[in-house]
Each structure stands twice: as structure tokens, then as C-alpha cells.
């Protein structure tokens, strides 16, 4: 996932060629989406990110402007509307991974360690140690405060994928009569590949930060008929999800609550 092969780089570079003519932007976005779908399907996250960055940030604006010029209003065609949504879905997914990775690195890597007490404690060493302990407390507080922020950001961007608006992540908003090259099929496979994984990452964040009640509510989210996430989960993934939720239940039991986190009757 962390290397981009030469042939992948060629595909990424090809996107740039398609962006020279602003009038072709919706076509460029569709092509870029197709390339990014194939990267996501083979879990090439870095390549996907590079491909994403090849498409100019203002592309959605450009597509709206083109539509306005051609039709006199900003109502996108069904195909363009779907392409823009897909592009935003991919963005949300990349953002979620970024946010998770940052959270993960901070959570596991940078917690300040408690200074060792001096072995033979003379007065000067004791004073120096007390000073170091005070500094340590400040560092821990800073660490915790960054962690809180990173946790919040990671949660938000992961939920953002799971709860993606207008019908869900990688679900078309508009019906299009002709299916282009198995696009819908690929999108369904991507939902099956990515949504359980995002859900597990979210559980990791919530569980590690002791938000056990929120862990349990993941069950509500996945089982909901509004979002239909459970349809993108295979049997083994559901078993894994239940096992993870069970771990959160055990934590709640330890805290003298019932397994769902309510006061014992």
C-alpha cells in the first residue's frame, strides 16, 4: 500500500493529461474515479491518494460552471451528479484513513514516559527529579489534549464514510440507464471491501478511548434499515464485529454496569 508501481504511476500521470481542457473536466473526473476504484480494490491507498491529488481541487466548481454555461442552470446531468458524489465518497474514505493513521501514531507512539526516579537521591537530584515530574505532567496533559482532538477528528471522518449522505457511501444518487463498464458492480464490491474495514477502525478508536457505549451503538448503525450497512458485511466480518463488541461489553461489566452499559437493575 505504500509504494506506487511504475505502471500505476503512468495511470496517475494520465489523469493530468485529461485535466488540461476545463471543458472535459467531468470526463476527467469519471476517468479518475475509475482509476481510483481500481486502486482501492487492490488496496493501493497511496496510489489512490496520488490519483486524487492529480485532479485539481476546484474540479467540482468547474463542472458546475460548465453545466451552467451549457444548460443555463446548475442542475448536473445524472452521470455528472453520480461522478461528483463518487469523487466525494473517495475523498471521505481517504480522509478517514488519514485521520485514523494520525490518531493511531499519536495514541501508540508519542505518549511521554514517566521520568525514572534517581537511584541515589541526594538533594539536588531529588529537586531535579521533582522538576522533571512536573514537566512530565504538563507533557501528558498536552499529549492528552492532542489525542482528544485527533480522536474527535478520526471519529468524525470514519462516521462520515459509514453515514455518507444521499443513500450511502459509493451508492449512486441518480439512476443511469446504461451501466458503464461494470461500474455499479465495482462500487458494490468496494462497499463490501471498505465499509467493514472502516467500521473496525472506528471500533478501534472508540474502544481504545474507552467509549464503550459508542462501541455498542455500532451494532445499531450496522443493523439499521436506513443505512443497510449490514448488507456489505460478510458472515465472518459480522462474527468479527460481534466479537469486538463483546470485548466492549466485558469492559462495561468491569465497570459494574450491565453488558450494554446501563445501570444494573
Amino acid at each position, binding site marked *: 500500500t505504500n509504494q506506487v508501481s511504475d505502471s500505476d504511476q503512468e495511470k496517475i500521470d494520465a489523469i493530468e493529461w485529461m485535466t488540461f481542457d476545463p471543458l472535459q473536466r467531468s470526463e476527467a473526473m469519471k476517468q479518475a474515479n475509475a482509476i481510483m476504484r481500481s486502486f482501492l480494490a487492490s488496496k493501493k491507498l497511496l496510489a489512490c491518494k496520488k490519483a486524487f491529488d492529480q485532479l485539481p481541487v476546484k474540479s467540482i466548481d468547474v463542472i458546475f460552471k460548465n453545466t451552467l454555461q451549457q444548460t443555463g442552470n446548475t442542475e448536473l446531468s445524472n452521470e455528472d451528479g453520480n461522478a461528483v458524489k463518487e469523487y466525494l465518497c473517495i475523498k471521505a474514505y481517504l480522509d478517514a484513513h488519514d485521520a485514523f493513521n494520525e490518531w493511531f501514531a499519536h495514541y501508540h507512539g508519542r505518549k511521554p514516559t514517566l521520568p525514572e526516579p534517581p537511584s541515589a537521591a541526594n538533594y539536588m537530584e531529588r529537586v531535579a527529579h521533582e522538576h522533571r515530574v512536573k514537566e512530565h505532567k504538563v507533557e501528558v496533559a498536552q499529549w492528552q489534549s492532542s489525542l482528544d482532538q485527533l480522536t474527535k477528528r478520526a471519529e468524525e471522518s470514519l462516521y462520515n464514510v459509514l453515514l455518507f449522505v444521499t443513500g450511502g457511501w459509493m451508492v449512486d444518487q441518480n439512476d443511469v440507464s446504461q451501466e458503464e463498464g461494470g461500474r455499479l458492480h465495482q462500487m458494490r464490491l468496494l462497499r463490501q471491501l471498505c465499509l467493514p474495514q472502516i467500521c473496525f477502525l472506528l471500533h478501534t478508536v472508540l474502544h481504545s478511548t474507552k467509549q464503550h457505549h459508542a462501541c*455498542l*451503538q455500532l*451494532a*445499531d448503525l*450496522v*443493523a*439499521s*434499515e*436506513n443505512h443497510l450497512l*449490514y448488507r456489505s*458485511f460478510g*458472515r465472518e466480518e*459480522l*462474527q468479527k*464485529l*460481534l*466479537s469486538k*463488541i*463483546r470485548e466492549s*461489553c*466485558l469492559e462495561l461489566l468491569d465497570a459494574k454496569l*450491565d*453488558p*450494554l452499559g*446501563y445501570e*444494573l*437493575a
Partner: protein
Amino acid sequence: LGRFLQTDEHKYMSWLHNIAMGNFLQAHATLFDLAKEEEKIFSKKKTLLSLSKLAALASEDPPDIIANNWEEIQREQTLMLHQEQLPESVIEGLALDVEKFRVFSAEELIELFTGELNVDAMEFDFKKALDLLEFLPKDGRADFDRLLMLIWSRAILRDSWTDLDSTEAETACKRTVFFRTVELAIAEDMDLATRLPNLDRLLSSDELQGLSSNKTFRFFLGTAFEQIQRMMAK
């Protein structure tokens, strides 16, 4: 020992154990029992149902064992979704903390969606109330009829029929909450033949006693019903 294991606390332990052992069918069954029993805390019931649903899907057992429960789970989930959609004014009026919601019955929800606390009730609320009739206990035919009358009477009472403009009676009727509820029900394929009482029965309902002898009211409601009959005939 059997009774000992039946207590809530031990049922709770048992599904955790079932999941650990990979016995998802048993976990599903226990969680489903617990969900049905839970009437105090809404969010707890919801999570028990969700877990039971996920455990059913995680189970490798043949789906026909689960099929019956599955339908009931979907039904319970739909009912709970209705409760989650209670309008803000109702929740404020009841001074309820959403986090500590208790579980409302279908009858209570019908009462709340159509009642005074729902200040801005529209056709969607009354249609929802009609949908909720499907969730009443199956043995209560009398309740069904009483609530059906209640819903329609209350829909009618949302408008001041005696002030409608008689020079354009047909159009005026169409703007009433009652009429729009009928339109919505037809659009969503509800069988109005069994869900809409006839004009005489409605006029005899308790709620409409104050109005039923009013000629203007009868004229407008009659006009509305004529149009509805034409719509239903299509």
C-alpha cells in the same frame, strides 16, 4: 438451575459466552428474547435488537430457523424508527430526555403523533399514525377501530372547515390536512377501502360530535369525500 439461568443477569452473560464460543444462533435467540422483554429503556431495546439481528446474520445455521424471528425483528425495528421520528414539539412537551426514552407502544405513538403536543402535525404525521395501526397487538380489533376513527377525526379537526371558501369548495377541501393525508395514503398504496371509514361513520365519531350537525362542515366534508371516491375509483 433452569430458573437461575432464566434471570436477566444470566441471560446477559450467556449471549456473551455464546459469541465467544461461536454459537451465533443461540446468541441471536437469547438477544431476541431480551429485546422483546426490554420495555424500560428505548436505546437498550434497540441495541439488543440490533445485536440479535447481527448475530442471526453471523450464524451459519440454515436461514429458515431464523426466518420467523427475522420478520419480527424488522417489524420491531420499524416501530422503533417511528418512535425516533417523534417531532421535537412532542418530545419537549413530554419533557423527555431522548437518552432516557422509554419504549412507547404503537397505541401511545398514535396518540402522540396525532395529539395536541404535535403542534405542527401534517399529513405525514397522520399517515404515520395509520401505518402504526399495523403494530397494534393482533387480538385487539376494538382498539384498531377506535384508533382508526381517532386518527381520521383528529386529521379533520386540524382544519377549520366552517371557514373554508365555499366559492371554490373543491380546491378548498384539497388543502385540508385530512385530504392531503388521503392523497398521501393513496400515493403510498395504502388500501383505503379498509383504512378509511365512510362519511356517516366518521360523522358519528365522538371527536366530531361538536361539528357533525353543522351544515357547512357537512357540506365541505361531503365534497371532500366525493373527490376521494373519484380518486379511489381510478
